[in-house]
């Protein structure tokens, strides 16, 4: 249907080019959240990135390049697919999947990376650094750097390297250097610390492609804008395929980039309920989950003010999730803002629910979802049950599950 008729769908660049009333203030605040809680040594480069982004938003050549890459390299638009057997299984609303898993590199991460790689070139940077948890952002960054001939270093926690061997191999094959992070909890948050540290010593040559809507301003805004093509397309596709807007839009939330990109174009559609699904891990006890919006408190982490998992002294807590991409103690500041204003409802799906959803989508639809996206699917099945057959739920299938099969097999007690 509409999926192949590219001109009818919004281009990637439209979400970037349009300043809206939802942009943060000049210092990056969404209400009280966001801001720039960073060392002075990073401030100059952060301001350089902010200025470059504001310039790029009105630079038609930049926007055209982004659209061209998103169409011919990523393979956008991604389809909106009605999951009929999954809907029947849930026994309620019609469920539509926004297939970001079909993008080049297998997840939504490429949307942001291509935009920021173009920005890096615009700024004359020759080297790119990135952090990665599950490895999807690392792979997307390695891919973009190969495509643009940029040097690439990806910081990845030692624990995540163990969990995500396939992605590590892919990054190295693409010419990226994967630097194991052995400090702290050896996961995503420590990889962000190391990347920031690298950046402070390399600002002249290097751009840091932060992979989620976290960190100091302007990253939460830049990443949201580059990801908003997801929601822009989905909104238009839903209108064309069903004649109306969805009743509910659902996405998983770690740092929150696919959810921000999915929700943002629906924020002003009051009739559309927005639901973010955090990683509930093994349960609500401290240390057992990665759900700062559901169970955390307001605080500062990685340069912005948001919800975070911290102890009474402000020390970041260890978190747990079956999914390396959601295993993060913080969350993007705009999600904190949406939570406090009540625009988005945040819930948690636990490890075993995500695992069950992973299997359901595989057996009912022939689609292997990423463990991150499986959290969104798990909640979607529950939410669909509560609704009637005329209702429509659109869920972001943010990534494919190939990277997770070793870990899933291990959890199921099987050997590959």
């Amino acid at each position: 249907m509409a999926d192949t008729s590219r001109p009818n769908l919004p281009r990637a660049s439209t979400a970037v080019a349009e300043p809206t009333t939802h942009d943060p203030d000049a210092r990056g605040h969404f209400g009280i959240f966001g801001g720039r809680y960073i060392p002075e040594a990073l401030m100059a480069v952060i301001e350089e990135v902010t200025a470059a982004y504001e310039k790029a938003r009105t630079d038609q050549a930049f926007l055209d390049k982004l659209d061209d890459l998103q169409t011919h390299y990523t393979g956008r638009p991604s389809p909106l697919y009605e999951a009929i057997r999954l809907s029947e299984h849930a026994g309620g609303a019609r469920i539509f999947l926004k297939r970001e898993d079909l993008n080049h590199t297998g997840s939504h991460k490429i949307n942001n990376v291509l935009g920021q790689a173009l920005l890096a070139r615009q700024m004359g940077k020759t080297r790119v650094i990135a952090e990665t948890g599950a490895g999807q952002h690392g792979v997307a960054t390695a891919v973009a750097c190969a495509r643009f001939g940029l040097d690439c270093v990806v910081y990845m926690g030692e624990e995540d390297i163990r969990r995500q061997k396939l992605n590590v191999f892919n990054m190295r094959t693409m010419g990226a250097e994967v630097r194991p992070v052995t400090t702290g909890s050896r996961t995503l948050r420590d990889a962000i610390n190391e990347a920031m540290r690298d950046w402070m010593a390399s600002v002249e040559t290097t751009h840091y492609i932060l992979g989620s809507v976290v960190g100091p301003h302007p990253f939460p805004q830049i990443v949201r804008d580059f990801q908003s093509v997801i929601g822009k397309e989905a909104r238009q596709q839903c209108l064309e395929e069903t004649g109306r807007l969805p009743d509910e839009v659902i996405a998983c939330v770690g740092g929150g980039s696919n959810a921000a990109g999915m929700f943002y174009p629906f924020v002003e559609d009051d009739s559309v309920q927005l639901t973010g699904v955090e990683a509930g891990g093994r349960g609500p006890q401290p240390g057992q989950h990665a759900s700062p919006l559901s169970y955390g408190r307001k605080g500062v982490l990685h340069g912005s003010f948001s919800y975070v998992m911290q102890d009474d002294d402000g020390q970041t807590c260890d978190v747990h999730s079956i999914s390396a991409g959601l295993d993060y103690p913080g969350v993007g500041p705009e999600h904190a803002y949406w939570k406090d204003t009540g625009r988005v409802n945040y819930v948690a799906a636990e490890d075993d629910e995500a695992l069950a959803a992973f299997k359901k989508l595989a057996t009912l639809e022939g689609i292997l979802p990423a463990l991150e996206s499986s959290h969104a699917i798990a909640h979607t099945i529950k939410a669909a049950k509560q609704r009637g057959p005329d209702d429509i739920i659109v869920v972001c299938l943010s990534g494919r599950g190939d990277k997770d099969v070793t870990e899933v097999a291990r959890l199921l007690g099987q050997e590959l």
Partner: protein
Amino acid sequence: MPSSRISDVFTKLKSENRLAFMPFITSGDPDIAATGELITELGKQGCDLIEIGFPYSDPIADGPTIQASYTRALDKGLHVNDIFNTVAALPTEELPPLVAMVAFAIIYRIGPEEFLTKLKSAGFSGMIVPDLPGDEAASFFELSQKHGLDLVQLVSPTTKPERVERILAAASGFVYCISVAGITGVREDLPPELKDQLRWLREKTDLPLAVGFGIGKPEQIDMLRDVADGVIVGSAIVRQLEPLAKAPDQKKAIIDQIGNYAADMLAATKS
């Protein structure tokens, strides 16, 4: 410039034509008792000011040496109240002014009002908050002033002139000048651009200028004599503490060694 214990130190040093020597130590590495003993030793040697690091789980502004030191302290279960209690038990009036190096994540969690009250009553004279740049600092600066505590701000070689003015508007005590555009750690030489920046800053503010990040040797102090008012030494001291975690019986020897190192650096500030 309002008077404070910190500004009094710099005024006195100026009359003696001497640079301030300000060592940094991590509280709780290897344990909080050793921190009390180290502060006492550094005071005995005549250090002009002592920076006390509050360990933080995600210290992006610090280099690997200090991060490792923070991790050692936190792994042993150090709490912020342990630092307050230990410092409060010292005769802080007889010691050089103590300045906390503390992440805003910690201050926010405890509550700015409560944190400043505790900091003041423990006997600290001020603080450096590395992740609270001038832009976010205005109201916290006012609150610090109300509590009679100095808020030291950082200026980096990449800081643009128009930013410097905004930063200085929310600064007191002294200005912490980062000597290299990067993370903390010991460097071989001081970059030549540093002198230019210090000369430029001198015209912008009456606040004393202290240089940190990458200072570890007495020779480096000489290079700064005409352009700065003080030097801060962190990693070079924390590195000496490192072996203590594994050899607690060496405590006295290592504290003496750090005392001797401080004495050498102090001698260099005078010559």
